[in-house]
C-alpha cells in the first residue's frame, strides 16, 4: 500500500494540453496538503512532438519526481514507447485509444484503455477537454477529494469565461462517471491532509521574480528566451503597479545596457536570459564591472551549445558565467538549488550588487526555472535592504565627486544622477578617482587592485556550501541536481552507504569552505548536467582536489535518483 505519494506523468503531443492538466494536478496536490515536485519535458516548437509533464505529490518534502511514476496518462504512442517502463510495478497506465489502439506489454501494472478524446468530443464537443476528463478518471480511481478537485478546476479557469469553467467541471464529471467502469487503485491511499496555508506552489522563475520585487527591483529589461521569459512576463504584470518598469528590449544587448542604465540612475534593475542571450551580454557585463555599477542578471541555463535544445536543461554555462568576457573584472555568480532558494538568492542578489557595486549573476537551470515546487511562504521579516555606499545626498561641495575614491575595501561612495554635489563621469576606459580617463601606471595598478580586491571582501557575505551527512565519500553538485541527489542519498542510506553531500552555491568568488569540506574526503562523486565537468574543474582549480568520479548527463533531461545511487554503489563495489 503506497500512501500519500503519487507521481503522475501526462504525455501527449505538444498542444495536447498536458501542460495545463499538469498545472491543475499540481495545484490540487498542494491544496490536498502535499508537497509537489514537477518535471516538464517538451519540444522547442509549438505543435507536435512529444510532450510530457510529470507531477509528484507527497506528504513528505520532496524535490524530485523520483525514479518511477505511479501513473502514466498517455495521449499518444510516444508516451508508451518512452515512458511505459517507468511505471512502478503495481502502478497504472491510462491510454487514450481514440486515435489508435495498440498492444501494450506489461503484466505487473494496471492498464486501462479508454477513448478519452472521442468521449470528450461526444459529450462536451471539445476534444482538448479530454485532459480534464482524465483528471476525473484519476480522481475516481485514487479517491481524490472530489469537491477539492472541483474547486481547483474552478479556480484554475477563473480568469477565463464562465463557459470554460462549466465545460471543464462537466468534463471532470464525465471522467468520474466513466471511471466507474474500472476498478479503483486500492493499493494506493491518497488522503486529504488539508491545505497547508503556509505554502505556495510556484516555479523558480516566479520565485526569482518575487525575490526581485521583494528587494525593490523596479526595472527589468529582457528579450524573450526559453526558459527565462517567464520572469519578464511575471514582472510585466506586477512591476507597473509598483511604480516599476518591465521592458521587452530589442535584443539581449539592449536589455543589459538598459538595466545598467537604470542601475546607474539608482533603480534596482535586472536582465534575465538564457545561454544565447547571455553570450550577447558578455561585453556589457564587463562594462558594469568597470564602472562599478550594480546589475542583476539571470542566466537560466539550457541545453547548448548554440541554440541546442532550447527546452531542455543543462548546467554548462559555469565557466562562461564566471570568466566570460575579455579582461579581468569582479563579479558574483550564485546558483540556487531549488525554488525556495531561488527566491532568497534573487532577493540577496540585489543587495550584493549594490553593496559590492558589481554585476551579480544568478545561475539557475531549466529545471529550477521551470519546475514547480511547493515551498514555504517566504519569510519577509528577516530580510533587509542593503544598498551599500549609495549616496542620495552629499554635503561636501566639491565641484567633482570622487566616484572611484580609493578606499579600504575597494568600494567607493556612489552618488546617482540627480544628487547635488555628486557630479562625476563614469567610464569603461581606465580612469582615476574622479572618473577622468587616464592610462598612468600607478593609477592603473591601484584601480585594478581596487576593483578586484572586493572579491575577497565579499566572501563573508556569500552563500557557503550546504553540507549534509558525513563521511569520506562525498557527492558534490550544484543547482537542480539537489532533488535527485537527495533521493539518491536516501537510496544509498538504505544500502548502508553514508555520503556527505556538498552543494556548492557560490561560484564566484570561489569560497574557501569547499576545500575544508573536502578535506577528509577520499572520493567525491561530481554529479553534473554537462559534458566536461565544469563544477569538478572549478573545484579542482581552486582546491586542487582531484579524487573525483564524474557522474554526468548531457541529454537535457533530469537525473533520476537511481542513476546516481546505482553508479555510486557500482563504483564503491557495493
Amino acid at each position, binding site marked *: 500500500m503506497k500512501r500519500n505519494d503519487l507521481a503522475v506523468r501526462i504525455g501527449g503531443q505538444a498542444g495536447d494540453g498536458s501542460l495545463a492538466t499538469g498545472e491543475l494536478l499540481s495545484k490540487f496536490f498542494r491544496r490536498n496538503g502535499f508537497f509537489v515536485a514537477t518535471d516538464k519535458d517538451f519540444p522547442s516548437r509549438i505543435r507536435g512532438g512529444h510532450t510530457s509533464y510529470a507531477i509528484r505529490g507527497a506528504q513528505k518534502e520532496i524535490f524530485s519526481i523520483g525514479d518511477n511514476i505511479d501513473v502514466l496518462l498517455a495521449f499518444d504512442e510516444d508516451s508508451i514507447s518512452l515512458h511505459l517502463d517507468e511505471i512502478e510495478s503495481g502502478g497504472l497506465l491510462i491510454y487514450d485509444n481514440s486515435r489508435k489502439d495498440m498492444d501494450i506489454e506489461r503484466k505487473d501494472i494496471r492498464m486501462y484503455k479508454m477513448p478519452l478524446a472521442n468521449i470528450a468530443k461526444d459529450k462536451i464537443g471539445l476534444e482538448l477537454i479530454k485532459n480534464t476528463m482524465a483528471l476525473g478518471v484519476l480522481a475516481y480511481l485514487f479517491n481524490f477529494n472530489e469537491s477539492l478537485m472541483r474547486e481547483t478546476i474552478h479556480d484554475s479557469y477563473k480568469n477565463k469565461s464562465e463557459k470554460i469553467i462549466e465545460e471543464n467541471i462537466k468534463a471532470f464529471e464525465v471522467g468520474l462517471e466513466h471511471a466507474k467502469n474500472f476498478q479503483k487503485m486500492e493499493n494506493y491511499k491518497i488522503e486529504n491532509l488539508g491545505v497547508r496555508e503556509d505554502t505556495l506552489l510556484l516555479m523558480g522563475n516566479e520565485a526569482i521574480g518575487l525575490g526581485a*520585487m521583494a528587494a525593490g527591483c523596479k526595472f527589468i529589461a529582457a528579450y524573450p528566451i526559453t526558459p527565462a521569459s517567464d520572469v519578464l512576463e511575471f514582472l510585466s504584470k506586477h512591476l507597473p503597479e509598483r511604480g*516599476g*518598469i518591465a521592458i521587452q528590449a*530589442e535584443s539581449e544587448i539592449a536589455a543589459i545596457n538598459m538595466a545598467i542604465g537604470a542601475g546607474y540612475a*539608482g533603480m*534596482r*534593475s535586472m536582465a534575465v536570459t538564457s545561454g544565447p542571450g547571455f553570450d550577447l551580454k558578455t561585453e556589457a557585463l564587463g562594462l558594469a564591472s568597470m564602472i562599478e555599477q550594480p546589475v542583476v542578471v539571470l542566466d537560466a541555463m539550457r541545453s547548448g551549445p548554440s541554440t541546442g535544445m532550447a527546452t531542455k536543461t543543462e548546467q554548462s554555462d559555469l565557466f562562461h558565467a564566471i570568466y566570460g568576457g575579455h579582461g579581468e573584472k569582479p563579479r558574483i555568480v550564485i546558483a540556487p538549488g531549488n525554488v525556495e532558494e531561488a527566491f532568497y538568492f534573487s532577493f540577496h542578489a540585489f543587495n550584493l550588487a549594490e553593496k559590492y557595486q558589481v554585476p551579480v549573476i544568478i545561475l539557475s537551470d531549466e529545471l529550477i526555472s521551470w519546475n514547480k515546487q511547493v515551498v514555504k511562504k517566504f519569510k519577509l521579516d528577516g530580510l533587509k535592504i542593503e544598498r551599500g555606499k549609495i549616496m542620495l545626498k552629499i554635503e561636501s561641495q566639491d565641484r567633482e565627486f570622487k566616484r572611484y575614491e580609493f578606499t579600504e575595501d575597494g568600494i567607493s561612495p556612489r552618488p*546617482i*544622477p540627480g544628487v547635488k554635489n555628486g557630479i562625476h563621469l563614469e567610464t569603461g576606459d581606465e580612469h582615476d578617482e574622479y572618473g577622468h580617463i587616464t592610462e598612468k601606471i600607478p593609477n592603473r595598478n591601484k584601480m585594478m587592485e581596487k576593483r578586484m580586491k572586493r572579491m575577497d571582501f565579499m566572501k563573508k557575505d556569500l552563500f557557503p556550501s550546504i553540507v549534509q551527512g558525513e563521511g569520506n565519500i562525498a557527492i558534490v553538485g550544484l543547482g537542480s541536481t539537489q532533488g535527485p541527489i537527495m533521493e539518491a542519498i536516501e537510496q544509498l542510506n538504505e544500502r548502508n552507504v553514508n555520503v556527505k553531500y556538498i552543494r556548492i552555491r557560490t561560484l564566484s568568488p570561489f569560497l574557501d569552505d569547499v576545500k575544508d569540506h573536502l578535506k577528509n574526503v577520499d572520493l567525491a562523486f561530481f554529479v553534473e548536467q554537462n559534458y566536461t565537468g565544469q563544477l569538478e574543474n572549478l573545484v579542482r582549480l581552486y582546491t586542487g582536489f582531484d579524487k573525483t568520479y564524474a557522474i554526468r548527463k548531457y541529454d537535457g533531461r533530469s537525473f533520476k535518483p537511481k542513476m546516481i545511487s546505482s553508479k555510486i554503489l557500482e563504483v564503491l563495489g557495493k
Partner: protein
Amino acid sequence: MIDVKLYDKETPTWCPGCGDYGVLTALKRAAANLELDPSRTVVVTGIGCSSKINSYFYSYGIHTLHGRAAAVAEGIKLANPDLEVIVAGGDGDAYAIGTEHFVHLARRNLDIAYIVMDNQIYGLTKGQVSPTSEEGFVTITTPYGSPEKPVNGPLLAFSAGATYIARGFSGDIVQLSKLIEDGIRHKGFALIDVLSPCVTWNKINTYDWYKAHSYQLKDHDPSNKAKAFQILSDEDHLALGLIYKKEEKIYEEKLPRKFVANPFQNIEVDKSIENIYEEFL
C-alpha cells in the same frame, strides 16, 4: 541665463580644428540657455573621439560601450524621467554598431536628445570607412574606394518614427546650439545630426566641403512629412536646420506605471508581494 563656463570641465584632447569643438561649444550654450542643472543632467556617450564629449562637459556623464549609448540612456531615462538625458557620439557609434538601438530608441520616442557628430569617418581608430562615408570613399580599409551606399542617419530616424530631426554644422555654432537647445526642449526623441569634420583623417569632407554641399532650410514647415522625406532623401544637398518635428506622446507617458515618488530612493522590502501569493495557491 547661466554662464556657459559652468559647463567647462577637462580640456579636450581633440585635434586642433576638430569639428567636435564646435559641438561642445554649442552644447554648452544650449545648456546655458536651457539653464540645465548639471546635477540633473546626464550625458551618455559610446566610444569614439566624439564620445569623449562628456569628459569635457560638466554634468553627470557616462561613457559606455561602442554603439550602446542609446540603450544605456533609455535605462536611465526610464528609471528617472526627471533627469535630462542627452546622448552624444559618432557616426559609427550611431549608424553602424549602434543601428539597432538607434532605430528602437527612435520608435519608442523617449524624451531623449541624441547628438550625432558625423564626420563620415572613424576618428578614434584612425581613419577607417564609416557607414556615412560616401560611395567610392578611399580609406585605409577601403583602399579601392568604398562599395557601399552610405547610411542616411536622419532618414533612418525618420522612418523609425523620430519626432524631431535636425541637421547642424560644427561650423555654425549659433544655429547648432539652437537646434540642440530645441532638441532637448522637444518632448520626445530628438536627433541632431551634426556635420562635424574630422580634420585629421577625412581630407575630403572638410569644413569647406560641407559648406559647399549644404544649404539653409528656408520657409520649411517641419510638420510636413512628405516634404521632410524629400529633404532628407536628397543626399547631395544637405539641408541645415529643423527638418521634421511632430508632437507625439512620449514613451514615458504611455507606460502603464503607477506613480510612486522616487521609486529608487528609499527602498524597503516590498511586502506587498504577498498580495500576489494567491496566484500560487
